[in-house]
């Protein structure tokens, strides 16, 4: 990925989060609990499990991102962003277009099927609102020099811009999974 304007990147990510929020509000929060909890026809995750999986990452990344924004590095006036090789690799891995490869989720991010579906959707909405606030605050942060640790190791730290890209690409991946499932589910 070539260097790009951070404002361009942040506003396109904000649009993506806006889309996820709108879908959660217009579709998922109004589905009956039974529909949300129904396992996928191929035995995969229910819609509630998809969202709970995303919530489990949000619980780690949203506080980590907030901390990073409050303890920034570099120069806030830096308007350029260039993806790091690892950040770019992680984001590419999540892109639904680039790979349909299945990844096994770590155990602590694999939700059990017996969820409070409504609470899961409500938390997802809450987290997306928070993520949007972070994206807006990041406009006044050097997203190239400020770094956030990844969930699997505190020694690996991605650029803040890459953390946003990776997290939102991961959200998109599982929103698509949940929506695929919805099409197959008779309401």
């Amino acid at each position, binding site marked *: 990925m070539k260097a790009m304007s951070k404002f361009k990147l942040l506003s396109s990510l904000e649009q993506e989060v*806006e889309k996820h*929020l709108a879908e*959660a*509000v*217009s579709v998922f*929060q*109004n589905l*009956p*609990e039974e529909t949300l909890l129904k396992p996928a026809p191929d035995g995969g995750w229910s819609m509630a499990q998809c969202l709970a999986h995303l919530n489990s990452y949000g619980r780690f990344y949203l506080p980590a991102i907030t901390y990073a924004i409050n303890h920034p590095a570099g120069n806030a006036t830096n308007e350029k962003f260039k993806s790091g090789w690892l950040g770019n690799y992680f984001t590419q891995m999540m892109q639904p277009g680039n790979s349909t490869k299945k990844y096994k989720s770590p155990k602590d991010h694999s939700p059990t099927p017996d969820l409070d579906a*409504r*609470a899961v959707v*409500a938390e997802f*909405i*809450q987290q997306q*609102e928070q993520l*949007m*606030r972070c994206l807006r605050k990041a406009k006044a942060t050097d997203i190239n020099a400020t770094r956030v640790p990844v969930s699997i190791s505190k020694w690996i730290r991605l650029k803040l811009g890459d953390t946003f890209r990776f997290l939102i690409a991961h959200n998109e991946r599982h929103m698509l999974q949940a929506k695929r499932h919805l099409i197959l589910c008779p309401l």
Partner: protein
Amino acid sequence: MLTHKINRTTSEKEKMIHSPLADFIRTLYPLGKKAEQYIIQNSFHKKISRSKYLLKPGEFCSYYYYIHKGVLRAFIKEGKKEITTWINPENEITTSIRSMSRNEPSLEYIQALENSDLYAMSFESMQKMYTLFPEMNTVARMLLEEYYAASEERSYISRLPSAEKRYSHFNATRPELVNRIPLKYVASYLGMSEETLSRLRSKKSM
């Protein structure tokens, strides 16, 4: 800062040859060419993105806002809790009524719940319009009647003794909102917890 800040660009003002605010008023009462011109010249477009604030407590609001697209809500803070006092979707006019009628600062936050398009006109321009175009007094009266009824509706809903009754009243009168705004705001408007609201909703769908 006491006065409410507005982002306004002259190019935007020049571009506006047609006003959604004028269109809205026309649905209530016939609008003359001159009055329409006046509205076009004295109102401006304002975009506000999701979850941003139009107004905060302590600020004076000196504008009427016509909601052309989107949803706004008002709330007050009680400790850490937010109590939603109204939720208005498009085709409504909104403002801080205290600022307008009593010249007192707002007690409420006004926040966008969707990316919204507003058209604003200052109280001052509105006052002038009443003198220049007396028929606008009729429009103002019609709107006030409408909003007084809406206010009565809100005080009615808040006095209903059970959460179930408040919810079923809401469901009968404004069911479309649940497709547009997060349920936590509906719960806070109806004075109940999110858990109670979701319990009532699943009961209803059975």
